[in-house]
């Protein structure tokens, strides 16, 4: 960027606009910095978990006690608890969220869609402790009859029946925890899918309608294919929140250590995150290492699930591009 002489400036237009160049470079630099910060933070978390947690994998048996003797025995029930509650939450929340998002974006008239969207967003602002309180002291009791009904009616069925064994008399089961989680992750999934649904190009929607598609057929032909990637992102964010949720699970679930298929059992393994929150105060240095190690396991599992989902979505898109 040498300053052109007055003579040169007069002779020809200034092709190299220095001003725009600087602005562009500042913007590109800050965008790059922001991107790298995220990667650095992620790497930092991973390094912390790995360094602090490494020794947690191989502690003497009594550290893992009283219910387990090795790290594997300690973490597997927690992992099962984490994923059971999260999967129940997803099974309930995903169809509901997609439905609500679709109603808001494509079915309801504007005067009703806007307030509904607003109320759903408000759900996200409620602190998880409040959900925990509500779940533990209100919802659990109300769900006791449902637990009994499930046990009586679905319990005798051969394979599925394993899920509905002896019911929890207070209703504080994994199922209840999953339902509370479902309500908590509903707003985030709804908000994101609503946004991607409403971005479907009008041109595509009209193409479907003009072919004689009903509204639902139009949604299947144009909205879902267009939004697929965003829908997966939304579910992943919801799952992330469900996996990491501590308070709601801690407060709702009556914690046990026995692994079983029974999702309405008297006691069930808690989640990794809830377990960390519970044990953090009464920690010994050894136990802290173990807790961090369980955190590392959760971190890696979340990563894995995310990659898997991305890969599945990407696969169908790659097939199209061939």
């Amino acid at each position, binding site marked *: 960027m040498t300053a052109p002489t007055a003579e040169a400036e007069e002779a020809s237009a200034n092709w190299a606009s220095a001003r725009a160049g600087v602005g562009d470079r500042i913007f590109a630099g800050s965008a790059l910095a922001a991107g790298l910060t995220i990667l650095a933070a992620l790497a930092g978390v991973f390094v912390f978990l790995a360094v602090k947690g490494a020794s947690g994998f191989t502690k003497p048996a009594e550290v893992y006690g009283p219910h387990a003797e090795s790290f594997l025995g300690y973490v597997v029930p927690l992992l099962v608890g984490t994923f059971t509650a999260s999967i129940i939450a997803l099974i309930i929340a995903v169809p509901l969220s997609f439905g609500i998002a679709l109603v808001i974006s494509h079915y309801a*008239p*504007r005067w009703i869609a806007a307030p509904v969207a607003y109320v759903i967003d408000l759900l996200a602002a409620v602190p998880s402790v409040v959900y925990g309180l509500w779940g533990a002291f209100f919802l659990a009791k109300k769900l006791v009859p449902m637990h009994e009904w499930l046990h009586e009616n679905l319990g005798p069925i051969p394979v599925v029946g394993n899920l509905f064994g002896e019911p929890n008399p207070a209703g504080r089961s994994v199922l209840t925890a999953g339902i509370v989680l479902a309500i908590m992750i509903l707003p985030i999934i709804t908000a994101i899918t609503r946004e991607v649904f409403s971005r479907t*190009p009008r*041109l*595509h929607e*009209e*193409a*479907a*309608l*003009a*072919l*004689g*598609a*009903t509204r639902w*057929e139009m949604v299947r*032909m*144009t909205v879902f*294919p*267009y939004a697929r990637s965003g829908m997966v992102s939304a579910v992943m964010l919801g799952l992330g929140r469900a996996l990491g949720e501590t308070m709601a699970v801690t407060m709702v679930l009556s914690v046990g250590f026995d692994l079983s298929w029974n999702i309405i059992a008297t006691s069930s393994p808690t989640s990794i995150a809830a377990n960390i929150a519970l044990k953090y105060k009464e920690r010994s240095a050894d136990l802290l290492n173990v807790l961090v190690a369980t955190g590392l396991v959760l971190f890696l599992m979340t990563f894995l699930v995310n990659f898997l989902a991305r890969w599945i979505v990407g696969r169908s898109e790659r097939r*199209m*591009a061939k």
Partner: protein
Amino acid sequence: MTSRVQKEAVMAKSIDVSDVNIYYGDFLAVEGVNMTIRAGAVTAFIGPSGCGKSTFLRSLNRMHEVIPGARVEGKIVVDGQDLYEQDVDPVAVRRQVGMVFQRPNPFPTMSIYDNVLAGLKLNAGKMKRSAADEVVEKSLRGANLWTEVKDRLNKPGMGLSGGQQQRLCIARAIAVEPQILLMDEPCSALDPISTSAIEDLIHELKDEFTIVIVTHNMQQAARVSDDTGFFNLKATGEPGHLVEFNPTKKMFANPDDPSTEAYISGRFG
């Protein structure tokens, strides 16, 4: 909805339009249109931007009401049936009245093959592979696209050039064998060679379908159409209306209305 299942012989139908007013909410966009669109002919609508010709076209297959608050008054009768009668299903109307849009809009996630079949799959559900192949070839041949794409039917429709995409959209529209084909400025996003390909196609298609085309290009209206309707605004902010509807030859040689002549000859004011 038997009409969606039954396979009827393709037969071009005429359209009788009487006293049609078209609204966007409270705003009257097009006022008092009366015309008879002949079966098996090409009818072109010309007029300045914003005069309501596209709006009117979209009322012919009930696509206008897709916009919230939009509605139509009056009668549009096809084959003895008023499209705007109470118990008429707009979905069934759109089955019989196909549409091609201003910008090519193949479904981005579908292959060429699936794009052509998209409308049929809606109506007939599962089809035999051989029957489907037949429809795809017939429609693509009908749209003059077959030789260009026959070796890559499983590639995405978005990979084609603009003109090919538009012909794919025409193939998609004629695959369901509608009675009437509406075209909303189908060449405005295309280069002259693609435009000429589509115009040739319109000539071939008019044996089977009643074609209604909106165009900004007066030479195009003169080249492809048998009848022409000239739409204009009475004044800025006033609703659009049909100024004149006549055979294209007469329209371009000796129009009834002085404002038509002014518009066609380029002395518009």
